[in-house]
């Protein structure tokens, strides 16, 4: 299958995402933020980084990039999209996922491995996980405290849109295991249709034991499996 990694001015995990899916033997291209027309991709990755310097709000300027119109179309027609860290923030600003991101409650950037509980393993992004599986994937962000109003949260829950929660080694999702103050320890969500995922942790940084964990591979392997089953829609 073929991945497309979007590159905005200030993206800095684009090469890591490119490397991660190449490691899994997949084809992958970079898609420059000025591109308004592209096709032939089975999944788009919005990588982490500091698009437009994270100025004003993380993702606030990138959402107006020329490429985003096409990304929205791609989402509406069922294409698979994963936004990681800043990519998640851009998806929120663009309205492709509900909610918003606040600064970490410590007011500090946090870079470390965290434990995540898999809350929904029935998606195109998590089908290689077992339900409730605890995995270790690093976070690296300053604005990762997810927030949504009560009504939105209710909808997220009803539709099983909460995919990952921060937790303890044993899967306890009590507030004290939340690194950043995120609402109900939310680390990753998808849209109602299940074809767009946003997550703060970086699966591309957890591709081998030498990097501290290989749990991130499962995210990309899930996407590959989903694509092979014809989920998502190749954009021709």
């Amino acid at each position, binding site marked *: 299958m073929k991945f497309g990694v979007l590159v905005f001015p200030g993206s*800095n995990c684009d*090469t890591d995402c490119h490397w991660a899916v190449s490691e899994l033997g997949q084809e992958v291209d970079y898609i420059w933020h000025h591109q308004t027309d592209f096709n032939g991709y089975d999944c788009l990755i919005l990588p982490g980084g500091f698009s437009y*310097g994270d100025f004003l709000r993380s993702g606030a300027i990138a959402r107006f990039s020329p490429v985003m119109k096409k990304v929205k179309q791609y989402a509406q027609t069922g294409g698979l999209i994963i936004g990681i860290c800043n990519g998640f923030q851009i998806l929120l600003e663009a309205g492709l996922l509900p909610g918003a991101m606040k600064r970490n409650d410590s007011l500090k*950037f946090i*870079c470390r491995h965290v434990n995540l509980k898999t809350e929904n393993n029935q998606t195109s992004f998590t089908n290689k996980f077992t339900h409730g599986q605890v995995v270790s994937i690093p976070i*690296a962000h300053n604005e990762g405290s997810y927030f949504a109003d009560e009504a939105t949260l209710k909808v997220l829950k009803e539709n099983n849109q909460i995919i990952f929660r921060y937790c303890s080694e044993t899967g306890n999702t009590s507030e004290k295991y939340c690194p950043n103050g995120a609402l109900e320890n939310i680390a990753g969500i998808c849209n109602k249709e299940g074809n767009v995922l946003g997550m703060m942790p970086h699966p591309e940084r957890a591709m081998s034991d030498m990097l501290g964990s290989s749990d991130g591979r499962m995210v990309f392997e899930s996407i590959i499996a989903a694509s092979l089953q014809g989920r998502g829609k190749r954009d021709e």
Partner: protein
Amino acid sequence: MSDLLSIALELGLKEDEYSRIVKILGRQPTKTEIAMYSVMWSEHCAYKHSRKLLSKLPKSSPYVLQGPGENAGIINIGEDKAIALKMESHNHPSAVEPFQGAATGVGGIVRDIFTMGARPIASMNSLRFGNLSNPRQRYLIDGVVDGIAQYGNCIGVPTVGGEIYFEDAYAENCLVNAMCVGLLEGEKIIMSGAAGPGNLVILMGSKTGRDGIGGCSVLASEEFDETSANKRPSVQVGNPFMEKLLIEAVLELKGKDLLVALQDFGAAGITCSSCEMSSKGEAGMELDLDKVPQREPNMAAYEMMMSESQERMMAVVTPEKLEQFMEVCDKWEVPASVVGKVTDDGMVTIRHKGRLEAQLPSKSLTDDIPIYCPEAKEPPYIKEVQSFDPLSLKEPDDLNEALLSILGSPDVASKKWVYSQYDHMVQTNTLLLPGSDAAVVGIKGTNKAIAITTDCNGRHCYLDPYEGTKEAVAEAARNIVCCGGKPLAVTDCLNFGNPEKPHIFWQFSQSIEGMIEACKALDTPVVSGNVSFYNESFGEAIYPTPTIGMVGIIEDIKHITSIAFKEGDAIILLGETKAELGGSQYLKVIHNKISGKPPAVDLEKEKSLQEAVLAAIKQGLVSSAHDSSDGGLAIALAKCCIAGGVGAWISLEYNNLSFAQALFSESNSRVIISCKADNAQKIQALCENNKITCQNIGQATGQSLSINNTINLPLGKLRDVYEKSLEKQIVGGKS
């Protein structure tokens, strides 16, 4: 006194330096020209007090592709790849405005690396502050760490480690030394020498504003009234977003072979780059300042020439390639403007609003500079501190408490609070996380990795600058060896007080002597570096702090070795513990004393030790390795236990030492190794061959650290103290 002379003096030139300028030019200089000389002949740019001694440092080796003199040094690591490395100070700006000072320090050093055409792959920093009980020091460290984090994280270069120490001597002059390492693929290096008369000179990056020219206010006196003082901010503000775009643009320009030469704007912006590029290229340059993109209206010529606005670079491009060059800059949204051309007359010519503002021989600014050999005199404190006998102090009754106090002291305690604010994983090459002896960064597409470290024990350098500096080099190399690497090259950042004072210059010259010897003995040439003098306030200088940044090569990533003990392993101590408590953490923390003779370094022994350790690692005999330094053996053992999540049962023979000496002496040339029990004998044999003392001292087991049944501390307690102390002291102001 003439007006021009008084301006020259105000700008820091000496009277005879001014006469020298008049002699060189055969006429009176213009004000802009005085400004240019004042920065180019400043200590910062000209190294006029250090140049002579620095020239004696070993600089070459078959693998050194670029020694000192360019934006960064470069070493070959094989497989058509090379590593660029450089360290630089940003001490004074950080003391004024810690956040921006540190941020722009990172920005500057990262630019030095990609200016050579290397992709920055790792940053480090070596920091010094005063005592954390003082709220200003807590403000400084918080701001500096925040500045490094915001800048480094944004540009996507992992900050993989460094060191932080706290001494009263740094209270008024904090040190912020930033190091960056880059990877060059292929053979091409971008050089800075302007070549090819008729080629175009291009300014790329941010617009030029009045940043950092506060010091030139004397030149403004007739051009502005007093209310304009606030128009001349002395603080430079960094823009990491622009830097990230510059990195990508420059690397694309290099890939497409669109550059003749490139230079980063260091201090003194356009002045420095135009003079240095001309001089290195045996050429000249003509610049029209009207073409410089300006952030503010009505900037005077000298303001543009002196501006330290960040994220700017000067490129030389052939006219044929201009269009392609501009296309790349447009793609990355990096502003770029042609501001002049290369000439063959060896002169730097500056025009502004149709007026000739300066016309100077470029060599007179960079080579024909005044060189000073100040008097060096041993300061009286040296005899006093070196005659102090640490054994004259009563040993504490409770050595368990003593160990915990040292482990939790801010110098020794884990720096997790700091490095968890740095993105140390981006680029997915970080193979040993911060907290190890050295940082290890993998090189994708090969089996290799590089190990990077910075080291300097300022207390030891204060007590004996010669031995202390030898130690800094030896320890840096030892740290790299413990991670499985072979030390290759040094970049230095030499922080001292006022070199015009004989006592300070003595410290400096002793330190350089030590560095020369150690770098020669350990085969680690110095390929780049920086000197920062005048780190003193109210007549009190900082401790001499010659920070050593070192890079080594790990030939196969399977050699990567951490400090973590593994359950069941045998624990072996390589090297000898001597009665060397002088300048130790034990004296500082337990007895509140910074005195004594610091530990000596036997460089021959050190070399054999490092060879033995590396051989053992390469033969696959070693599970963990950790050098014993700050805090002594007891602290090193505690750290190995904490990292491995396992206790240790240790039995030390210490002959004619006291137990406290055995625990806390900071003797050099010692490494703690753990290994499978079957391998212990092979390691002992290796040591015998290398004439290294080797003792089997115990086993990694259980959940507490026990030493000779006297030290008995549960692992949980050790971890708690080690990991939480620093944050408590910075955030809470508690000790």
